Structure formats: structure tokens, C-alpha cells
């Protein structure tokens, strides 16, 4: 790293999921940033706001924006807002808009816009389109992180690992790069679980790391290693931070089932999950499996 990354801290905080801190950090840095960094900081700020669910604030700001980045942000915020209030039509419309924007030749110059657009597409389940959107990417940590996620979602560990090793050449051990390592390690398993563990532990030790994202990552890691008491303490902490976070609820549900907690507890998590995130893939999947069960069971006849 020859030149010091002005947004280093912001990038790290964002990767850790410490969105409120991102906004504060940008506010404190603003006056000292160069123009280019200002631009990028804006994207981080809006993405953080979207992640925090404060869509209106974002929409207000970018309503009249014409730059690609602003348009992308607008698409994301509108989509997420529609998703939160289950307005399918708006969602469709925004996805179309995003697809349109993703076609723009100029997009290559705006990696952040690429990432934002790809996020919208991914949210709509369009994994291939999302990959296409960030296909022509420069050395950009967030793009790589998203790419790795996409590869993992496609169960293409080979591509994820390739991305990871490419990243090593230029990103060294930047925090977002390490996090993406950990994602891949968690898929690989074996000794790699332990490596992921060390990575998350390092994050947890840094300041501002008490985020849902880090806690859940640690919990997932502990669960993978069958270290249930440790996982439980992470999840308890996460529940204290936000008792309605779908990830935390899912992981708590898994933990409760694995540790043979009473049905009362597991169903509490399930119902809470269905309440806060009725559209969550996990919920969908469970419903689908219930239907699948009924269908499959019906094939077997029973004489009374």
C-alpha cells in the first residue's frame, strides 16, 4: 500500500457492518477528504443508511441526482424500501431499472455503482445478472467481496477461491479481504474453520466490532465447529443488540435445535422469524419443504 487509503477506516467499518460508525466516521473525515474520496464516501454513507433501513433519508438526498452512482443508490433504496413494505410492483420496476443501468458502458468507471446495482439484482435472485454487472471490475474490494458471495451462492468454491487469491496480490490483508477469506474458509471446512475463527476473532478484538455481522459470523463459525456454548454467547449478545435480526434468529433457532432445547423455544424463534421477515429465503424454504413433505408423503398409501 504505497499511498494511504483515505477511506481505510470507513472501508473497515463498513465491512464489519458497523454502519452507524461509518456515517459518523465520514462526518468527521469529510473536510479532509479529496474529491474522489468524497464521492466514494458518499456511496458508503448511503449504503450504510440503506443497511440501517433509513431509506427515506437516502431517497431525499439522491432524488435529483443524475450521476450513475446516485441513480444506482436510488434504485437500491427504492427497491429495499419496496421490499420492506412488500410492494412487488415497485420492486419489479426497480430491478428493471437496475438492469437497464447495468447495461451502461460508462459503468465500468464506477465500481461502487456496479456493486450497488449488483446488490439489487442479487436481492431479486438474479445471481447471473448480478455477476454480469460486476464482471468488468477493477481492483475494488467491495466488488470482489460481492463476487465471492455470488460464487459461494452458486456453490462455485473454485471461482471464489480464485477471486480470493487474485485479491491477495493487491489487497494484502485489508480487513474486507480477510473477511472474504473467512467466508470461503467456512465453506471449505476442516482446518480452515480454525483459520476463519482466527480472522473473526481478530475482528472481534478491534474496536467497533460489536456488530450483528461479526457476532453472527462468529456464531456461525462456532456452530460449524460444534462449539455450542460459545455460539450461544455470541448469539445472546447479538440478540441484545437487535432482537429482530433474521440472521440472528435463524442461527439461534439452529442452535436451539442442535442443543435440544424445548420446542417452546424453537417455535418462539420460528414464529418471531416469520413475523419480522416473512419473505426471508429461510422461511420460504421451510414452507416449501413442508409442502414438499406433504406431497412426498402422500405417495405412500396406508390402508386404515
Amino acid at each position, binding site marked *: 500500500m504505497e499511498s494511504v487509503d483515505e477511506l481505510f477506516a470507513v472501508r473497515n467499518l463498513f465491512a464489519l457492518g458497523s454502519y452507524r460508525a461509518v456515517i459518523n466516521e465520514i462526518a468527521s473525515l469529510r473536510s479532509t477528504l479529496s474529491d474522489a474520496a468524497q464521492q466514494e464516501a458518499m456511496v458508503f454513507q448511503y449504503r450504510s443508511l440503506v443497511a440501517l433501513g433509513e431509506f427515506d433519508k437516502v431517497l431525499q438526498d439522491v432524488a435529483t441526482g443524475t450521476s450513475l452512482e446516485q441513480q444506482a443508490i436510488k434504485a437500491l433504496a427504492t427497491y429495499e424500501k419496496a421490499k420492506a413494505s412488500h410492494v412487488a410492483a415497485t420492486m419489479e420496476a426497480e430491478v428493471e431499472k437496475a438492469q437497464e443501468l447495468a447495461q451502461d458502458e460508462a459503468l465500468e468507471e464506477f465500481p461502487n455503482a456496479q456493486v450497488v446495482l449488483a446488490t439489487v439484482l442479487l436481492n431479486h435472485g438474479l445471481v447471473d445478472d448480478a455477476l454480469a454487472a460486476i464482471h468488468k471490475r477493477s481492483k475494488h474490494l467491495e466488488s470482489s467481496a460481492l463476487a465471492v458471495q455470488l460464487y459461494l451462492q*452458486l456453490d462455485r468454491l473454485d471461482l471464489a477461491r480464485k477471486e480470493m487469491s487474485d485479491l491477495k496480490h493487491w489487497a494484502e490483508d485489508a480487513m474486507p479481504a480477510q473477511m472474504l477469506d473467512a467466508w470461503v474458509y467456512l465453506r471449505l471446512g476442516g482446518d480452515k*474453520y480454525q483459520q476463519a475463527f482466527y480472522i473473526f476473532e481478530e475482528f472481534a478484538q478491534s474496536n467497533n466490532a460489536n456488530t450483528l455481522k461479526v457476532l453472527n459470523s462468529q456464531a456461525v463459525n462456532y456452530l460449524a465447529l*460444534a462449539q455450542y456454548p460459545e455460539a450461544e454467547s455470541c448469539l445472546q449478545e447479538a440478540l441484545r443488540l437487535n432482537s429482530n435480526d433474521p440472521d440472528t434468529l435463524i442461527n439461534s433457532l439452529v442452535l436451539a435445535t442442535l442443543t435440544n432445547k424445548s420446542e417452546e423455544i424453537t417455535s418462539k424463534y420460528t414464529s418471531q422469524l416469520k413475523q419480522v421477515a416473512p419473505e426471508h429465503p429461510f422461511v420460504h424454504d421451510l414452507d416449501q419443504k413442508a409442502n414438499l413433505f406433504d406431497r412426498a408423503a402422500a405417495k405412500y398409501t396406508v390402508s386404515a
Partner: protein
Amino acid sequence: MRMLTKFESKSNRVKGVAFHPKRPWILAALHNGCIQLWDYRMGTLLERFDEHDGPVRGISFHPTQPLFVSAGDDYKIKVWNYKSRRCLFTLNGHLDYVRTVFFHHEYPWIISASDDQTIRIWNWQSRNCIAILTGHNHYVMCAQFHPKEDLVVSASMDLTVRVWDISGLRKKNQAPQANAYEDPFMRQNQQPDLFGNTDAVVKYVLEGHDRGVNWVSFHPTLPLIVSAGDDRQVKLWRMNDTKAWEVDTCRGHFNNVLCAIFHPRQEFILSNGEDKSVRVWDMSKRTAVATFRRDQDRFWILTAHPELNLFAAGHDNGLIVFKLERERPAYQVYQNQLFYVKDKFLHALDFTNNTDNPILSIRKSGNQYTQPRSLSYNPAEKAVLITSTVDGGTYELLNLPKDFSGEASEPSGDIRRGSGSSAVFIARNRFAVLDATNQQIQVRDLSNTVTKSFKTPTQVNEIFYAGTSNLLLATPNSVILYDVQQRRTIAEINTPPVKYVIWSNDMSMVALLSKHTITIANKNLEQSCLTHETIRVKSGAWDDAGVFIYCTLNHIKYVLPQGDNGIIRTLEQPVYLTRVKGKGVHVLDRDGKPRVIAIDPTEYRFKLALVKKNFDEVLHIIRTSNLVGQSIIAYLQKKGYPEVALHFVREEKTRFELAIECGNLEVAVETAKAIDKQEIWIKLGMEALRQGNHQVVEMSYQRVQNFDRLSFIYLITGNKDKLNKMMKIAELRGDQMSRFHNALYLDDVAERVKLLREVGQLPMAYLTAKTYGMVEEAEEILASAGMTEEEITLPQMEQQPLQPVKALQNFGNANWPLLPVAESFFERAFSAEGQNGYHDAETNGFDDLAAEWEARDDFGMSALDINGRDVEEDIDMALTGGNEDGGWDLDIDVSVPMEPEVAEAEAAAASTEFVAPTPGLNESAIWVGNSAVAGDHVAAGSFETAMQILNRQAGIVNFAPLKPLFLSIYQATRVSLPANASAPSIFYHLRRNYNDQDYRRALPVTVNSFEKISTRDLQVAYALTKGGKFQNATAQFKSMLQTLLLTVVANQTEAEEVKQLIHVCREYVLGLSMEQARRSLAQESPEENQRMLELAAYFTNCDLQPQHLQLALQSAAQLCFKKENISSAAFFARRLLETNPPPKVAQMARQIQAAADRNPNDAISLDFDQFNPFTVCAASFTPIYKGSPSIQCSYCSAQYKTDYEGTVCKVCEVAKVGGNASGLRLFV
């Protein structure tokens, strides 16, 4: 090697020095005739002994007695007692300067060497000379006893060193103690022998020095001698029983060498001399190891401490006490492990089981004469960084063996080293090195290549770990928290130069140790307290509770983050704290041996609990420990917890003070009564008044007889009766003024008039009477005074006479509204304790609730969890073990292209055209591919295949009851990880073989482990059965049967166990169903009675646990007996007796048998043939006798009459009766 100076004195020339064997004292014999006694640890001059005339040269402490001996140019040898601080006696005899004196280690002897060419041995008890050793023909410069044998060695200006045999002398003085009491005649007889020189004979004469020999000494253990002479040489000699010879010479001094000694523990020789240097030589190689030079001071004398790693040297302007190496071992604690360096080995100590193993040899590292200085451990990579001061600071990066339990190995791979004064790991794969001279910090990776290098922000002396990518930089006057990646100073704290940094376990607090201060700060370097120590701070460790425990040279102490500190215990020798756990402090002692020192943590825990306002804990400590003493009371009072202090105090006066302080009137009154002193009551009154408790005020006024105030308090509380009484009392006391003012308060004019008359104030009395319209009295007064109205002129009064104050309401016994006295947690707790014991007061609802919750929820689960994990771990161990041995180590790191698509993807990436990659194999699919076990397919969500498997293997046809089970297994196999912002989370699959290196062999996590079913579930079911909750018990057994269907086990043995458990469940379900059927019968018709007895009988046919079978038999026997089926009853009674029942039941059974003997008949005939083996049809609950046709459930093997073929089994409710099944497969 460095000379680490511990103490330095300034004085006249020092010609002799001697260490005290136990205390930190050193004696210096000065050229000006004075002897100084120094405490070298505190650096103070303790004593001066000034009796010699002229220079003092020889000096020696007695090894055990409070004595020392000195000798000088006044030819005198003086023996001193340092306790009484005086010279006990003087030994005269030498005829010239005395050069050296030494005590014998065992006998009451002193040896002296003198310029009169003799060596004399003295008995200091009898105070006379017992031997004169002659033979040297010049000054004898030095003479010493051998530390063990009967030998003496001497050095002389005659160029020789002589070894003398004094065994004859010892034999003659076999009982040396007796000498003092010997009768004079005997002593006279001895005298002639002494000078005959037969007691001490010269054994060897060592020639080799070219000039006079100044010093000679024996090796403490080996047959070696070292000598030093004016020929500027140090010579090493060896001897055996018959001869002695020169071994080698150490050349290097360029002036007279005055002293040479052996290093007591290591293979070194130390020498010093007039060339103003102290030199260290390697004893085996005879090469110079180190030279310590001074500009001005010629060295005259050198000595080693008999027990410690200390040396002292006397020179022209004083003396120095020094060490040649640090005793602090390089060490680091990581979680439950301590890594430390001892004797050129890296050791690992596991605190949990106290196993200590040398794991790595570091002989090849660094310099052979220098101990490593610090150590940094990297748990992720199992590597250590060791730094030492060699060549201005070097570090080495070493890989540790994988397993710490084996033999110590040589370091594997290359040793990566470099220069730098400190080196620490800052991340899994990075470490930072400080180059102090150039003020550069380099960040290096594990292959020791520099990835980053930057200038320090300011002068930095040392660097320390501070969490990932952060460093603590110790500057001369501050500590900086520095972010290495951003190259940014995050925080800075001003401190004296920091030597050591100790982080708390959770990295939230840090202790910065300087020489004399300890700074406690949080992770952002915000200081929370600063503690000064007059004695040097050595090391420290954090307690789990967040208390910092540290040690100085002679104490173990604690400091709370809020700043309170105190002594925990004293130390004999300095130690290095490594860890604090409960009541044990783990330390490394000066020899590098790990030890545990017991401490009493009560005091600091108590204080910590107080500061943290963790009052439950405070209370617990108060109740369970025996904390006492003034200091704790003073502490509590000072810190504003008088109510807590109150609890500790028995002494009334203090108790009273504390009670007043915390406003506890009850206690105050109680103690005031016990003390009963004026000032106490006054104080009590004041406090009571402040609170508004006028009853207590009244009492205290009464006690001190403060009538005026008492009256006033009665007035304002409207207590007229008491005021009247006060008036009476005043009258009795003859206190007219008081009477008057009470009367005034009472508005009792008559009394006032009466009083005024009594005291002879007639005009006043008249005036009063007149004013208040008491005409009669007025006239009476006039009459008695012999005056008339006309003679008096009354002053004009414009106003109405004053009305006395009246309380609107008489409070009587009630108090005023009391000032709210904050009743603290403790008072509540303590008072509760007084009333009804400990519990109810502070165990608030939460605790109860939690306890209840746990009780309901856990059901002995915690134990199970552990069990389950153990087994899993065992399995994993087996797996990994196999890996290492069998070379199955398929490291996927080196993996070649895994799927052919890589090439394709690469091609795609190369061209700008985007080709969407095809999805890979989902882990669920991997699971399905890897396992043929139904449970695994369920976990993978492949319900269809799972059902196929179950149908094929166990003939399952009715899946409906399994639905919740399927879903709960499925839902527990995937976890959700939030990845990119606003993007959906990534799912991860949980594996049971999570130690397997290849994810392509993955198998799903086991949700319903067999352990859980066979221990927890089964116990629950048994408990329900025992408790008579048959319906619940049946449901439980059924659910177990169904769960077992989907369980996954490790091997055949466990699979067999599962089969047994299925058997158990089936028997119970069947038996309990029959029992329920029996109970639901109305018992009215004879048919029902018969059916009832039959069901009871069949129940006993089930394969139950003995205790449950007993219950079944008992009930069957009793039922039959009641229904007068005596013969059957007797049959059950007999079986019951076979089960060895409790006495009461046995008695009952015997009674039935006795009755059966009288009348062996059955009233009702049953379908129950006790002599013909049978099974019970699970649907009709009728017996199927041996040989009759039957059919069974394809899963649980419940028996059925053939009529039921094709139905769903009544027992397991999932399988088909008479279905085809290939047998359930339970493991991969």
C-alpha cells in the same frame, strides 16, 4: 552479556566486600578504617563500624549467626555482632597487616592471611588461635577454606599458591563446640601441638605465576582453583587426590589482577584488577566473554552472593552490586498456556492440567551467553518470535511442533532471524519489528519478508502487541496506540518509560508497567488509574474479575481499575506473575520454575464488588469470609459505605459513629444506651432532630438532662402533660427560671404569679396578675406588700399581652414525618437477615424465575451436552489421528483445479464477454451423495429420497407423524451469515465431520444424536412411567421410536444399541397402552372385569425395567387377589418376589401366596396361560401363543395377529404391519 548494576555506593576505597547470605545486605571494608553495612535493595546505609585503626581489608559474614569478622592493617581481627552493633572481641596475634579473613562454613573457625607470612586459624568460640600455617616466604595475600573438604588454599607474594590439608586439625577439634567449655588443663595440653604444625600440612605448592599472587579461590563443586596475580594473569588449576596442576591461563588484563572467582552456577570465571575492568571468562574455553570497564576506578575485590545471582566488586570510589544476566525469563501467556524459556528450551505449561513440557530447543538461537529477552506467541500459526539483546537486538521466528506433549524438538525449517530490538506478532500472519537505532518499524510476514516499513512517529524504545494491526509504542514519556495499517496514532497516554505491557484477558484493559509506576488504562488508552510504588515493579497479571495483580520485589499487590490498591502478601524472592486464577497466582521464579502461590483474594474482590456496586457479591463475601480489621472499616467509611462498615464493627463507639453517619437511628440508640455518655447522647439528639425523630430527640435530651431543650421540644410537639411534668421537675430542682419558662410555655399565669411571689418579685407578680386580669391575686399581693393600688403606677401597655406558642396538634407518641433516610441495599439485606434468614430479601424475582426456567428447560441436559461433545470429539480425534498416521492428509490448499469449469471461467474472465458460470454442486447434494442414511437425506432437505429410504429399509408408510421431525432436522442444518451490505445472507451447512479437510466428504450435522435419545429422552420417559403419567410416557416412547428412525450413529456397535433401544421403546409403548386400556374400563360387567385382569396380566409380559416390572406385577397380583383370582395372584406374587421387591411389597406378596395355599382357585377364567410363552398383539391386546400365526411391524417389530396385515403399526405409528424392510441403516 551485560553488567546490570543493581546498586552502587560512593565511598572511600573499598578493599573488602561480603554479602549477607539471606538479607539484602552487603558489608564494605574501607581503606579509611571504616566498615559500612548497606541494604543494596533499598540503597541505604544501615550501619557504620569504625574501630579499626587504618585500612580494613578482610571482611566476612557468618553463614548463620549474626556475626561478621573484619581484619586490617592494625594487625587485628575483630568479630562483630551486627544485631548488638558492637565488636564482641578482638583476636590478636598477627604481626603484620591482615589481608583476608573468612569464616568456616561449619566449624567455629576463622581463617586469616597476613603479611607476617603466616595463615592462622582461629576458634571464635574459644577466641584463640588453633593453628598457624607457616611455609610461605612472603606476604600471604589470601587464604580460604574449601567449601566442603578439609582444605585451605592460599596465595602469596612468593609467587606460589598453596593447598593445605587441615584434616588433622579437624580431627583434633571433633567437638569444636566443647572448646568453649573445655577445662583449662586440657587447653594447656593442646597448646604445644598447635605450633608443631602437624595439624595443617602443605599438600600442593602450585607454581606458575611470574609475580606475586593476589587472590585464590576454590570452585564450589569441582576440584578447581582459580588464582590471580600481579603478572596480569588469571590461572586455572585442577587437582586430584595426589597432585595439582595448571590447566590454563586467561590473559587479557593489562595491569595487576587483584581478585578472581568462579561463577557459582555457570561455567564462568570473573576477575578484576587495577586495569579498571571486570572481566568474564569462559571456564572451559578460557576465552574472554565480556569486559566491563570503568574510567576511574581500579577494582580491588570481587565476591559472589552465596545464594543469589549477584556479584559485588569494590573499587576506588565505592562498590557496585551487579548481575550478569536478567533472571526474568522470556514468557508469554496465551489463554491457558504459558510459554517460557528456560535453560535454552522453550517450555509450554498448560495451566489446566499443570503439564510442563520443553517443546523446542533454542540452543542454536542467539548467543550462547545471552538469555532471550522476550517472546511473542502466535496461536494461529503455532510460531514464536524470540528476541534477545545480542548484537544490539535480534529476533528469531521459530515454528513450534504441532503437538506440545512430545519430546522437545529442534526447530524445524529455517530459522528466520533479523535484527531489531523488539518483535511482536500483530496479526495471524504479520509481525512488527522495531529497529530502535534507525527508529523504523517493519511489518514482516511469516517468511520474514518486509511487507511494510515506516518511520516511528517519535522516539520509540519498545513495541508491544495491542490487538490486531495495532501496536503500543513505548516512548520515553508516553505510550502510543498506533494503527499500523493506517499509520495513524489512535491514542496517547503520558507515562514514565514503560517496560512491560499486560492486557486483560478480554483485551479491554491494559496495565502499563514502568519501573515505579503502574498505569491502568482501557483499550483506548484512557487512563483509569496510576499507582506509584517505591519498590520496583516486576510483573503482573489480570484477575478474571478485572483486578490487576502485580508484584514488586517483595510484595504481591493488587490494584483495582478505580485506583484502590493494597498488599496481598509478601514475597521472599522476586517472582514473575504469569496468571491469576481464583486463589492461586501462577508465577515463574528466578530459576525459571513455574510455581503457584496461594493468595487470599477476598479483600480485593470485596473492594471490587463495592466499587462495581455488585452488592450481592459484597453481601456474599461479608457472610462467607472472615474479613475483619480496622483498615477495612476505615476503607468502607472513607468510600462512603458506612452501612457496610457497620456490619463489621463490634466496638460500640465506632458502631455508634457509623450508625450516625449512615443515619441508622436504631443502631445508634442501641449503641448510645450501651455507651451512655453525654457527648454520645448529644450527637444522637442532633441526628435524630435532623431526621425529625423527636422521640429519640426527647430521649437523648432526657439522658443529658437538657431541660430547656426538652421543654422546648415538648412545646413544639404540643405535649402539655410532659411540659407540666417538666414544670414540676423544675420546681423540685429549685430551678426557678426553668419553672418560669415552662409556665410560660404552658400559658399558666397563676403559676407564674405564684413563682414570682415565691422568689420575692412582688412587683412583677402584681404586674403579671394585673395584666392577665387576676384581680384577687393582685390584691392579695398588694395586701401582703402592705401597699395600695394608688401607690403604684403601672406602665402603659399598648398591646395585648403575649400569647404563648401553641402546637396545633399534639403529636403525642407519633413522630414527625421522618426525613427519608436512604435505606441501602445492605441495610435491607442485613435487616432481612435478622428477621428471616438470608434468602428472601435479595433473591429477587429474576433469580427465581431464572432458576425455574433452567430447571424446566435443562433437565440434566448440561451433563448430556458434555457427554455428547466428548463423544464427538473422540470421533474427530480418531479421524484426525487417522489422517496423520495414514498419510490421508489431503490438504486442499494445494488443490489443483477442482472442477473443469475453472478453465472455462478463466477463459471467460480473459475475454471481456461475460459468460455466467454454471452453478456448482450444492452441499445438500454432496450430503445426499455421501450418505445412504435416511437422517442425512432429511438434513439435506431431500425428503423424497429420505422417504424412499425409510420405506425400503423400514417399511415406513405413514409419514405424517414424522413431519415435525423432518422439519426440525432440516432447519438445524444451515446457518445464515450476513455477508455484503444489503445483500441476502449466505447459508452455510453445518457438518458433523467438521474436521475433515475435504468438503467434498462432508456429512450433515447430527441433530438428534443417539446419546441424547438414549440418555435424556429415555430418562424422561422412565420418569414419566414411574410417575404414573402413562399417556405422556407413551407419547414420549413413541416419539423416541420415531426419532430413532432418523438418527445417525458412528458405527455398528452404536447401531446395535439403537436396535436395543427400539426394542425397549416398543415394549413400553405396548405395555403402557394396555395399562391405559385397562384403566379406561368401567369394571362393571363381568366381561370388563375379565378384560381388566387379562390386560394387567399381559402388561407383566412386557420386557420392562425391573422397577417398572415390579409395579406391573404388583398391580396384577393385587387386582387378581381383589377379584379373587387367587391362583393367578399367587403366580404374579411369586414373580414379584423374584424381582427382589422392597420389604413391604414382599410381605404383601407373601400374604397372597399364603392365601393361595389355602385356596388355589381363580374366580374368573382368563385368556392367560402362564405356562405357555406368548407375545401380545399390539392392536387387539390379545395373546399370540407360541406357534400361532403372527405378523410383525416392519420397523419396531411389534407383533400382530395376521388380521392386521397391511395396517399402520399401532406402536410406532409409522410403519406397515407385515411390510417388507431391508433393515434400517444408521451409519455411513
